[in-house]
């Protein structure tokens, strides 16, 4: 019996010890090579050949592209726009969602079930399906090429409400009763009990929403048509299309555009992962 067991174990050890480590390095390579290429190309002289990694590694490196882009394009402005929009949307969006979830979880009011259902149904409605009526609303508000037009439609996020509500539903009711007994205002309960309790959730969700907003494409393209009101995602393809044979400038622009997101990722890696895992919790 022992022998059989041993043989079986040896047989099964093989794929685990040989295949998986190899698989690990293949996976890492596939995921990283395009990014490594982007980075390498950005340091190569204008219009140089970028099809060979070995050649690229052994020839001249230069910062020229970076200096030229930062000097001649409105990259700074586009980064600022993207950053401002993402920051306001994630911050205010979280605040609105938290308050709404608190009301849905704690306060008794008429039509609560209906309201919750309407918010739940909103999960099914992508902004892509609303662009026409939303755009005509922005036109009638005269919000084209304004931060209001870029930011406001993205503030009410049903998903965030539902995640918060799930968390708040788990908060012990005794806490609220105790606060009520002390004569605390309901807003105080939210501010001093619920908001601090959900600190980790809030942080994770906020960073997740920040990245989502940072990467938005369709809506900013429709509303921010003026070069000074473009976000990075919208301006980048426009900027890159001015180079036909050169690869180094477009890749340099990509690197510059990615640096802020990469910094956010490296600093908040744990929260980002948690934020995503939360979108899956039902």
């Amino acid at each position: 019996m022992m022998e059989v067991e041993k043989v079986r174990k040896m047989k099964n050890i093989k794929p685990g010890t040989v295949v998986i480590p190899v698989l690990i390095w293949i996976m890492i390579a596939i995921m990283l090579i395009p990014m490594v290429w982007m980075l390498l190309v950005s340091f190569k002289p204008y219009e140089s050949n970028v099809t060979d990694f070995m050649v690229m590694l052994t020839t001249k490196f230069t910062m020229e592209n970076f200096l030229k882009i930062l000097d001649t394009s409105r990259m700074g402005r586009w980064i600022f726009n993207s950053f401002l929009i993402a920051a306001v949307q994630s911050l205010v969006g979280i605040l609105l969602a938290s308050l709404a979830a608190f009301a849905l979880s704690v306060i008794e009011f008429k039509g609560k079930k209906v309201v919750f259902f309407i918010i739940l149904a909103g999960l099914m409605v992508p902004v892509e399906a609303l662009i026409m009526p939303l755009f005509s609303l922005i036109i009638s508000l005269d919000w084209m090429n304004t931060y209001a037009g870029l930011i406001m439609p993205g503030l009410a996020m049903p998903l965030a409400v539902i995640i918060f509500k799930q968390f708040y539903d788990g908060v012990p009711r005794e806490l609220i009763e105790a606060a009520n007994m002390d004569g605390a205002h309901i807003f105080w309960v939210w501010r001093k009990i619920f908001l601090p309790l959900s600190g980790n959730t809030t942080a994770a969700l906020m960073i997740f929403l920040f990245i989502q907003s940072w990467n938005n494409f369709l809506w900013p393209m429709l509303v921010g048509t003026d070069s000074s009101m473009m976000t990075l995602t919208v301006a980048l393809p426009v900027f890159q299309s001015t180079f036909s044979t050169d690869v180094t400038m477009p890749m340099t622009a990509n690197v510059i555009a990615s640096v802020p997101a990469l910094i956010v990722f490296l600093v908040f890696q744990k929260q980002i992962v948690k934020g995503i895992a939360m979108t899956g919790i039902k």
Partner: protein
Amino acid sequence: MLPFMLMYGLFTLYPLFNGIFMSLRGGRLGRPQEFVGLANYAALFKDSYFYEAFGNTFLFVFVSTPIIVLLGLVFALVSNSKHRGAKVVKIAAFLPYILSISVITSIWVYTFKPYIGFLNSYLIRLGVVGDQVLWFDRAPLAWATIIIATTWWTVGFNTILFIAGLQEIPDELYEASSIDGATKWQQLKYITLPSLKGVTVMIVLLQIIASFKIFGQPFLMTGGGPGTSTRPLVQYIYEKGFKDWNAGYASAMSYMLLLVIIVVAFVYNKVTSNDGGGKGA
């Protein structure tokens, strides 16, 4: 509560209902629009470009969803193992997800681009192909570039969700089974995969809904071409609405998209819950 509902009402519910009225009107955006009843919808069903765009979106949903979900699972299983480099897999898988769509599409366009991209030159050197592959000149190849770019970009999202699911499986199950002499393969088959059923049901639904909204990748990579062979529905809506300024027609198409997403989600939910699988969404 109130501030959220105000924003939600103004920027989601109001457009949602106003869109219905817009889809019943003709004329261009910003001009007096006459009521045309269901004429936009009738025209839609006679428009071969509408069918093509819808078909393209469906094609993308049904080809990309299994690929992205399965690879997400493989990445999660590998990065959850105790091998060297497993943790790096998780970070590497997720890294592209934080890059913006413009960056990732541009990386892949230049990767595939004949003569100046690096992929062709390596394929030729390795003897896989004899000459430059013109990736963007034929529909199947153009689709391949879109699906590869999308997979590379978003696989990390599913990986993280699967890892979250893996971590909820109690260690005792594995310990008990290894005392009973179960192999790794048996553990995977009888413990890991069945335990992930609920998570998988949800990931597939999220992926399907996300894939139906496909727009940026074809728009930025192929422009919908060659011809209109990779143009998805959202891009056609965009072109009708913002190039031809035909607001009614574009709204009508938006409602078809919304309807299909809701029907698919509903049917999916029914099928998976009858299956005794997870709870769906």
